């Protein structure tokens, strides 16, 4: 034991740091970096995982050219963009609104917070399945509630190409707005009271207090929440797969659903690796730009 301690003592700080970091690093390399490099390598081949014994050929940039030149892929990207943009806008507005509401002290505040947070604790697959029932035009609650306010008659949220893209936006907003709300609430609670007291002394209106104190303080938190949600929704799969299977037709076929079909149903491994790399670069690029913008806002 003593000799072990002695040996340990003999190591430099840098070596000890490496010993502690090494397991994480090895795991990261094994689970993230190696598959990424492998996928990049695959993306330049015509490999099919189900065609055993077939010669794997290097095809250069053929897969990338094919994907980027395919009209349907751009359609999927548009569908994904529609989904990501609208969910972010709605979750930002509703999440911030709810956070402002729950930041006030009132009876039942804690219970209400817990209830609002419940949807995000559910499994996305389960949420997808039960919303298909809620959207059912004959027996679903959604139609009933909408028709209670205005008589639209029978309408099919997930069977109509116009409504289906909104149906997935609504469900994701329902499920994940609490997340944005919680992060914003944390931001709101970190604002020191003396700022508002000083504003009161300066006779600033509530609106001016919101614009000049609340919003700038909570904005970095909100942006962080939106970054998480943006990345998650860009690769959204389970909820939409259960809710619409990408249908009707391809009206809700997000890029990730299309990728799964190409990779694990058609088994076009080389092609789908290229598609995965493109998606990864897109998320990575957007993420980096976003973080830079966020840091600039923080600095202000």
């Amino acid at each position, binding site marked *: 034991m003593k000799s072990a301690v002695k040996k340990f003592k003999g190591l430099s700080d840098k070596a000890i740091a490496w010993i502690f970091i090494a397991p994480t690093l090895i795991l990261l390399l094994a689970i993230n970096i190696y598959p990424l490099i492998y996928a990049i390598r695959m993306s330049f081949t*015509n490999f099919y*995982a*189900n*065609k*055993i014994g077939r010669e794997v050929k290097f095809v250069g940039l053929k897969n990338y050219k094919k994907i980027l030149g395919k009209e349907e892929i751009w359609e999927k990207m548009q569908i994904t963009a529609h989904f990501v943009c609208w969910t972010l806008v709605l979750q930002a507005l509703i999440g911030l609104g709810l956070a402002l509401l729950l930041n006030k002290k009132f009876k039942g505040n804690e219970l209400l917070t817990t209830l609002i947070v419940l949807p995000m604790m559910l499994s996305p697959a389960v949420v997808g399945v039960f919303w298909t029932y809620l*959207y*059912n*035009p*004959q027996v*679903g609650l959604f139609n009933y509630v909408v028709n209670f306010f205005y008589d639209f008659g*029978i309408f*099919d949220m*997930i*069977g*109509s*190409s116009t409504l289906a893209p909104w149906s997935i936006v609504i469900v994701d907003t329902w499920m994940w707005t609490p997340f944005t709300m919680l992060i914003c609430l944390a931001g709101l609670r970190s604002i020191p009271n003396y700022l508002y007291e000083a504003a009161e002394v300066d006779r600033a209106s509530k609106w001016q207090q919101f614009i000049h104190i609340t919003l700038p303080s909570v904005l970095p938190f909100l942006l962080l929440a939106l970054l998480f949600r943006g990345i998650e929704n860009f690769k959204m799969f389970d909820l939409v797969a259960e809710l*619409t*299977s*990408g*249908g*009707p*037709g*391809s*009206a809700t*076929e997000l890029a990730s659903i299309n990728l799964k*079909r190409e990779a*694990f*149903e*058609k*088994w*076009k491994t080389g092609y789908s690796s290229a598609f995965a790399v493109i998606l990864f670069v897109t998320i990575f690029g957007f993420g980096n730009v976003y973080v830079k913008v966020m840091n600039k806002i923080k600095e202000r």
Partner: protein
Amino acid sequence: MRKILSVFLVPVFALLFSFNAKSESLTLGWAAWDPANALQELSKEFTAETGVEMNFEFVPWPNFAERMLNELNNQGKTFDLLIGDSQWIGQGAEYGHYVKLNDFFDANGISMDDFNPATVYAYSTWPKGSPNYYALPAMGDALAWAYRKDWFDRPELQAEFKSKHGYDLGVPKTWDELYDMCTFFQGREIDGQVRYGAAINTERGSEGITMGVTAAMYAWGMQYENPDNPYEMDGYFNSDASVEAVEFYRKMYEDCAPPGHSDAYMVANLDAYKSGQVAFQMNWYAFWPGVSKEDSDGRVSGFFANPCQNVCAATLGGQGISVVSYSDKQDLALEYMKWFAKPDIQQKWWDLGGYSCHMDVLGSPDFVDSAVYAQGFLDSMGIVKDFWQEPTFVELMLPMQERIHDYVVNGKGSAKDALDKIIDDWTEVFEDDGKI
């Protein structure tokens, strides 16, 4: 102490011996549906005869193909026997997933002449029609129709229908008649409830809408390719008749389906029918024993084969049973197959609700009267047509699912556009596979 030891050790040893005695076991994979339960029941007899324990893994239909094909592609040893879809035979044979059965059949006196020719062609042979067998026909099936006989029998509805259409309300002989009857019931109030025309296949994820629309396309005389020049699809798959059939199917969806029936297949159609929403349901014969069982006096439900239009044809379902080449228990699996092929077992299979393909069963004088849907089954099996059975069938199925769903349910583009695009997709697949 000895007593205490004996109290504990005797049961432990007994348990160990019992495991040892039952160490021989087989695992069979199939879809989770009524016939699978019937097979489980039937297989108890095999266990009783041989002592071989039978384990089953039944996968729900929406995940069936994905689960099983992943297993085969990974050369998994989970299954010794697999009852796989007819379209998998090309893949099973060419990629070496299934054991070739010719020598086994010859050695054990199993003749394919003893089975319905359409089922042998569809479930067992690869290349198609060649005497190379990779499966034993296990479960004959085709897409058919059930209708609410009790509504059809109402005199006031019969009179109203006849005055409107000039012919009797009954089993439709053509798709045009089917459409007339579906629209007749669409939105009609019967016994205080609003009813709809037909629950047809519209499912997007796996194979549902393709199986449904091809039922119409086959009846219009669609051919996938030039019979004299394989893989030449232009002018055949997208012929005027095919376009008309797809347009007709969309009309059926728009004018006859219940609200919200936009992603429906087997279970959804069954539910819509059983809950009294629709007058007709499109479904596989495999479900008729269950429907029939709930209607012991035959008053509520009637069954009929796919209606004709330009020709008489039906979409093939059903499966053959294959031995998985990656199994360590191939001999035992072949023993099961030998047992399953026996005529008396095949008769029991039919009696339990499985659709035997054995000619002794189908040709028996009692067969037609043995179930209300038996005649329809016989008729259908004589006119069945199947989707591509190429090894790349999944790659062929998925674009068809998307394009047809886009047109029929989503209302995007035209039927001709959809079929043309499918041909483009298929051409790419065949080119990539070196077939063109």
